[in-house]
């Protein structure tokens, strides 16, 4: 299993600013995954973060908008840059340490005003 801590749990931000979301896992994992859940919609994978290499982004997501850091095997950050109201979502971090089940953090609820 894995225990994932995300910070902040929620934030209200002004448009045009950036927010960095932290994800801390209680065990070492090769890959960490970032998802977004827009209001009333499903979870969508943003990117996969591997330690020691550039993150891999899914279609529709770019590094300039969502830069990701992965400095070690237990930590990652996702930055939402130059925010607009359309970025208001829940952002979730996920890992699958045993290769058999994905575990999720509680998410960061972001509201952009």
């Amino acid at each position: 299993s894995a225990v994932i801590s995300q910070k902040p749990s929620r934030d209200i931000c002004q448009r045009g600013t950036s927010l960095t979301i932290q994800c801390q896992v209680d065990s070492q994992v090769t890959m960490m995954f970032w998802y977004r859940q827009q209001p009333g919609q499903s979870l969508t994978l943003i990117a996969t973060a591997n330690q020691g290499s550039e993150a891999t982004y899914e279609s529709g997501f770019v590094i300039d908008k969502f830069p990701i850091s992965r400095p070690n095997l237990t930590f990652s950050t996702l930055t939402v840059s130059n925010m607009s109201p359309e970025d208001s979502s829940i952002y979730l971090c996920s890992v699958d340490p045993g290769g058999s089940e994905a575990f999720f953090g509680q998410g960061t609820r972001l509201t952009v005003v």
Partner: protein
Amino acid sequence: AQSVSQHNHHVILSEAASLELGCNYSYGGTVNLFWYVQYPGQHLQLLLKYFSGDPLVKGIKGFEAEFIKSKFSFNLRKPSVQWSDTAEYFCAVSRDGGYNKLIFGAGTRLAVHP
């Protein structure tokens, strides 16, 4: 492209009623299928999963799901729901035969009244 469809967005049941939540996916190859649950104020938790073998899989808290390959379906069932089953339920399929990089359905909000 792969996709997952959940037929019911909101379901309201009384305690002891039976539950069936529909899930259909579109993908022609080998799939791994999941149901996740999110209780109010909590994180997503795995309810059950199907990788191969017996198409009827049992999960936690009395839930089960049946994989019907010919129908591209993976419906979730519980014979008798409880108030504590009030939650949002997500069907998901893995994109690469693994356990992450999941494609999720839109979710079904279940409210169980005492």
